[in-house]
């Protein structure tokens, strides 16, 4: 490996060909994995695969963009929480707390709405977004603070904070934030003017309102923002250095504790933002089942994306497509939607295995 790095950089076209080949290999192995999983479930891959593709990328029966919109809608919370995870993990903070931070983000947003319900709609929306960022940042910050001042391992503290967040949501939706008729454990629906607008004109989606909402802009812009912050600023450098080698970072004069705290705060802010974006774009109300585990899925999503912002965007879209595809295939072809979860887990194991194998190959060849 080290020997290869010494050689002159290869030409652009060679690199493009290499990436294209890798992508083809990945797509092919994924298809084999998918077909294998479906066969294990006793489903005919020949009918199920087109149904999944149809649900993810479009279909004649809905009009062209409806399915694609579902893919992006499913990807939005994964993009934001995935970014949150990668920020923490790049700093060497193995945070499992995305789920709790997301819930606290949504809860903070809902609480703000509860108190300022009669201000103009765009202002409510804006303040809800701000509240979720602050709430998520605080929740992430607690774990960061515990680590830096009390040396409590963030793996443990974030998991526990997830439960506290979940039960806080439970208490809120059965207490102060419960809907007016007090019959269900949920908040009232947010009024339409507060919610994010649906972007796609009905003419493009076969006459049905597709769920793609303006919140997707936030998710898409958060990707380059995170990239710039991580790779073009001093803090970003300190963050990555701390993750690689905390001693080196300390020697270089960075306050490792401060960097770790910042990483957890930013990670929490991004996950919290995911909560309010989902609330304003899709759910419109909060209950204990608000998240099907986006904060947890974010970890495999970020890992699959190589812990880089661009990679996370791609892998979030990939899992969005898989979720939307299997959801739709359950309706149209009876494919159980849990297939998506099985594939998510299988993909992560494949990534981990490939990394371990590469690491061993590098050791054997005396590289790195």
């Amino acid at each position, binding site marked *: 490996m080290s020997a290869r790095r010494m050689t002159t950089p290869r030409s652009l076209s060679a690199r493009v060909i290499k990436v294209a080949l890798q992508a083809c290999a990945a797509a092919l192995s994924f298809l084999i994995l998918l077909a294998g999983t479906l066969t294990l479930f006793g489903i005919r891959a020949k009918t199920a695969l087109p149904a999944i593709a149809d649900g993810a990328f479009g279909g004649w029966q809905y009009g062209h963009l409806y399915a694609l919109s579902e893919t992006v809608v499913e990807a939005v919370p994964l993009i934001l929480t995935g970014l949150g995870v990668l920020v923490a993990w790049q700093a060497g903070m193995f945070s499992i707390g995305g789920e709790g931070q997301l819930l606290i983000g949504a809860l903070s947003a809902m609480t703000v709405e509860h108190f300022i319900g009669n201000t103009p709609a765009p202002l409510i929306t804006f303040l809800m977004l701000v509240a979720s960022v602050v709430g998520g940042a605080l929740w992430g910050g607690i774990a960061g603070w515990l680590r830096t001042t009390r040396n409590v391992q963030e793996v443990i503290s974030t998991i526990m904070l997830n439960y506290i967040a979940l039960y806080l949501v439970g208490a809120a939706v059965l207490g102060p934030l419960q809907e007016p008729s007090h019959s269900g*454990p949920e908040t009232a629906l947010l009024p339409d*003017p507060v919610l994010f607008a649906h972007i796609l004109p009905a003419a493009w989606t076969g006459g049905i309102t597709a769920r793609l909402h303006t919140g997707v802009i936030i998710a898409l812009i958060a990707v380059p923002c995170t990239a710039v912050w991580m790779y*073009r600023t001093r803090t970003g450098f300190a963050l990555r250095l701390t993750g690689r080698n905390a001693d080196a970072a300390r020697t270089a004069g960075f306050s490792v504790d401060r960097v770790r705290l910042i990483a957890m705060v930013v990670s929490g802010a991004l996950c919290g933002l995911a909560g309010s974006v989902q609330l304003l774009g899709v759910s419109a109300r909060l209950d204990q089942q*608000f998240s099907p585990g986006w904060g947890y899925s974010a970890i495999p999503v970020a890992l699959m994306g190589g812990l880089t912002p661009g990679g996370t965007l791609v892998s979030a879209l990939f899992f969005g497509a898989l979720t939307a595809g299997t959801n739709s295939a359950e309706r149209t072809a009876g494919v159980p939607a849990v297939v998506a979860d099985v594939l998510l887990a299988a993909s992560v194991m494949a990534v981990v295995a490939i990394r371990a194998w590469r690491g061993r190959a590098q050791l054997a060849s005396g590289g790195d």
Partner: protein
Amino acid sequence: MTATRGTRFRRLLLPAIIAATAGCGRSNAPTVAASGAPGQQVAGKPYKIALVLSGSATDHGWNQDAVKAIHDVQSALKLPASSISIKEDAVSPSQQQDNLRAYAGQGYNLIIGHGEEYQAPALHMAPQFPNTLFVISSGDKIAANVTPIVFKLEDGAYLLGMLAAGMSHTGKIAEVGAQEIAPVRSVFSAFALGAKAVNPNITILHPVYTNDWEDIGKAAQATQPLIQQGADVIIQDLDSASQGVFNAVQQSSTAAHPVYALGTNNDQNSAAPGVVLASAPINCSPVFVSIAKQAEAGTFKPSNTPYGLPQGVIGFIENPALASRIPAPLQAKITAAQQAIQSGKLVVPMKTQ
């Protein structure tokens, strides 16, 4: 470099947030014109029915019964298998909404959201799909094309309460529920009412909620302390997790000091034949079939009339394995009450708030 840190963020993320915020507010106008009554069969098109479940289709309870009922609808309306679509495990509000919308968008005539959680999203999107009839199990609100099915499980719970009070040696009975929602609270208050009718001095322990319709372990953990406090007949409204209550009761029950459990939502007598005294099952078939038939013909009118024991939707089934332990005078009282409910002489109240 330091200077760019903040400004880049402001240059990128903040405008995005403002752009998204400025683009907020959405319309809810119908996208298709209404033609005929909601849920009515359109000539020349296949009649399509969808069932959306928040849990597993094989839960031996609430959801499984709906699956059985939808197949009864299929045979009653003589529909091909491709006319029926079932979506299970729509756990989050986002998935529930997506499924209702996707089915409606695909032109399904009748969409059954099997649980109160589908009511708010259905009421919200219904104006966009005037030709689709949304049926909300356990709902309570009516719109032009949204109808609730009010299951009066209270009828069965009242009889279970009578049985519990009559069979308790300690004079203490208990209730374990999954979520503290109106339908569950209402069932428990009917249970208490039935118990007091047999024994006015009966102690009903404060209801315990596990916040989980599927976790058997949590249900067992919630039950054990109740037994330790002396409760010896326990009703549950837990769906898949009810087996946890049965397991805990089975472990504590001895010949000298028997502890019993009661089944709800489904005939659960065989789930733990040694301890389940009786069950109050919900039978969705008569309601689903009746609504689907009327909707197909275009004669259905949304209504919130409850379906209970008199309509055959709620049942009361004693466990034959334990029937011999029920004293004859108690049995006579229960049978009399059952007949009174059946004939409309006794109306068990529902607490909807």
